[in-house]
């Protein structure tokens, strides 16, 4: 069980820089998710930690052991592949025992550790069965068990849930998170699905185009996104982002949101006037009100079981609000939205970075 230190890690393939200057500390026993769209450099980072790729610059340290030049087999890395890479031509027992046998552990010792691990993962009844054709959650346990039995320094998981049936994925997420807490194992989980990162990770590292944008607890990254990309990427549906300009108003500095009217006073003090900003708020923070607020037409009502998503706005920008499923609104009606100022997030229009204090 060790902490992982990534210092100024970069990787480029010819002229294409897959990863630029990444610094990340992963504490011992922590579950960190590398989250981002495809091509954002999360898999490159994982492959460098596992030793498949060598960094162009920067270093990787497990605890205080520098990993430069250490081959894959010697790094003590547990790895769960996208479709689990189970040795389907072997039995469950042989899969679990593979690592021990390959590194020459005595038969009796091997047998004991396999039986303990099978007991721990409820795999005992199927130990001697062939591993082909097992259900996907058993495959997940087998893949984790096969690596965990080698007591690895760190566990890497490469989007293991991506081709699992949607209904079953929720069960797998809970089970995986529970296993991680039981093993108290340092884990790095790579995914493009923000829901998986939010529900399982202790901390999320959001990446885009090879750069690490923000690292924080799910709630912290969700409530205080450091820039426009993170705000839009997290949450389903993502944060509403309205372009606007700051203007002086009797009640204080407000935002002129073009066709959507003037906003309530802005929560951020000390901003200059007539400055291009992005006015952001989460769909679930919208309240319908008869009084002051943003007036706009409802273009579409999506009733999805427990919640209803109202699509509002016009041709260029559309907003979304999430309400309970008994919200009495029909398509075509006009509504006024009021948003608690505490839930407003402002971003600089040019850089996209969050505006928290006067800048």
């Amino acid at each position, binding site marked *: 069980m060790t902490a992982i230190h990534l210092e100024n890690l970069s990787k480029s393939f010819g002229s294409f820089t897959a990863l630029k200057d990444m610094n990340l500390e992963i504490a011992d026993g922590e579950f960190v998710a590398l989250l981002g769209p495809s091509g954002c450099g999360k898999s490159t980072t994982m492959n460098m930690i596992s030793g498949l790729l060598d960094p162009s610059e920067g270093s990787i340290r497990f605890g205080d052991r520098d990993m430069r030049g250490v081959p894959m087999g010697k790094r003590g890395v547990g790895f769960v592949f996208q479709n689990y890479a189970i040795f389907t031509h072997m039995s469950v027992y042989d899969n679990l025992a593979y690592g021990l046998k390959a590194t020459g552990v005595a038969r009796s010792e091997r047998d004991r550790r396999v039986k303990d691990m099978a007991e721990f993962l409820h795999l005992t009844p199927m130990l001697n069965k062939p591993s082909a054709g097992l259900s996907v959650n058993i495959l997940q346990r087998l893949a984790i068990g096969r690596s965990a039995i080698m007591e690895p320094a760190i566990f890497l998981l490469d989007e293991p849930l991506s081709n699992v049936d949607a209904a079953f994925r929720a069960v797998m997420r809970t089970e995986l998170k529970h296993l991680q807490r039981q093993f108290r194992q340092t884990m790095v989980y790579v995914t493009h*699905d923000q829901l998986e990162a939010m529900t399982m990770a202790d901390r999320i590292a959001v990446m885009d185009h090879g750069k690490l944008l923000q690292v924080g607890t799910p*709630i912290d990254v969700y409530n205080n996104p450091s820039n426009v990309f993170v705000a839009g990427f997290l*949450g389903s549906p993502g944060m509403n982002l309205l372009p606007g300009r700051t203007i002086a108003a009797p009640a204080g500095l407000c935002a002129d949101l073009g066709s959507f009217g003037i906003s309530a006073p802005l929560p951020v003090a000390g901003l200059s006037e007539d400055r291009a900003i992005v006015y952001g708020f989460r*769909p679930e923070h919208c309240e319908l009100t008869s009084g002051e607020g943003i007036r706009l037409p409802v273009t579409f009502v999506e009733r*999805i*079981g427990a919640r209803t998503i109202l699509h509002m706005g016009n041709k260029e920008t559309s907003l979304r609000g999430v309400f309970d499923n008994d919200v009495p609104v029909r398509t075509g009606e006009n509504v006024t939205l009021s948003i608690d100022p505490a839930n407003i997030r402002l971003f600089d229009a040019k850089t996209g970075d969050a505006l928290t204090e006067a800048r």
Partner: protein
Amino acid sequence: MASIAFNNVTKRFSETVAVNNVSFEIADSEFFCLFGPPLSGKSTILKLILGLEKPDEGEILIDGKPVNHVSPARRNVAMVFQNLALFPHMSAEQNVRFPLAERRMAESEIASRVAEVSGKLHIGHILHKSPAQLSGGERQRVAIARALVRDPVAYLMDDPISALDARLREETRVELKRIQNELGRTMVYVTHDQEEAMSVADRIAVLEAGSIRQIGAPSDIYDNPNSSYVAGMLGAPAMNLLALDAGNSSALDGALALDQAHVPQGASQIGIRPEDLIVTPAAASDETRVRVFEVEPLGGVTVVTLQTGETSLRAMVRGQPKIEPDSEVSLSVAAGQACFFASNGEALRA
């Protein structure tokens, strides 16, 4: 315009029954969704409507007229296949023209219709390209244009957006709904994603192994499912199904108190939606407590997984409450929000 009706239709492939005595009536210009797990007969029903498959029993009516013996071309029903089935060796324009060319339509008529449909679906700029050069979204719009160009009375879609990534799927389903509203044609839509079904459909038919378990508006099926199977199919996370304790006064060995008056006769299971389960930190006085197995924050809501003995259940709490894994909480359910099922899964009204 066309209504589509099935009367006791059955279709067998060698020994498996793909469609088992199915009857339904799709109203004109309705957005009707066939929803169910993979291999539950959804695609076979589409092929029966289309005429690519012939029913072994029962009758299929389009606009009230029996069409069992009418060839696919003469039924004037179009379909967008799951992998879009564009002709790879033809350009996008040739693909869209194909249905009209096959019907030997006048060239001027073909040109005007193709222009109109490609305008509506914004594919005018890519008509010259071959399918291999198009993006996923563009290929899909060309497939839809090919289905619409001969102005069918109804069109069918077989799980068209399951290949797209999550964010694009959310936007495309709204787009599909908008196109269907605009054209006002009957649409039969197949999907296995429950959120997609509830979002787009006017009415949903929930299928299981070739037979229809329930038909109704999404909110209607969601609020009062007619069986535990249907209840489990809609809603994420799925409805909790708990065995009732003896005497029907509580569930989870007393951990969940129930108002006996509301529990109908013969009920053996209680179904509670995660959002209807109320979770409160256990006060010292509560003796029936439940352990928190796992807490999953989703941002807008938080899913709390609870465990007592062998059964586990989930609650969905709004916002970001301070609940720690392995802590103790007490449960209650809002009055009248639960469903009750008999031992055979049948829903029972209180």
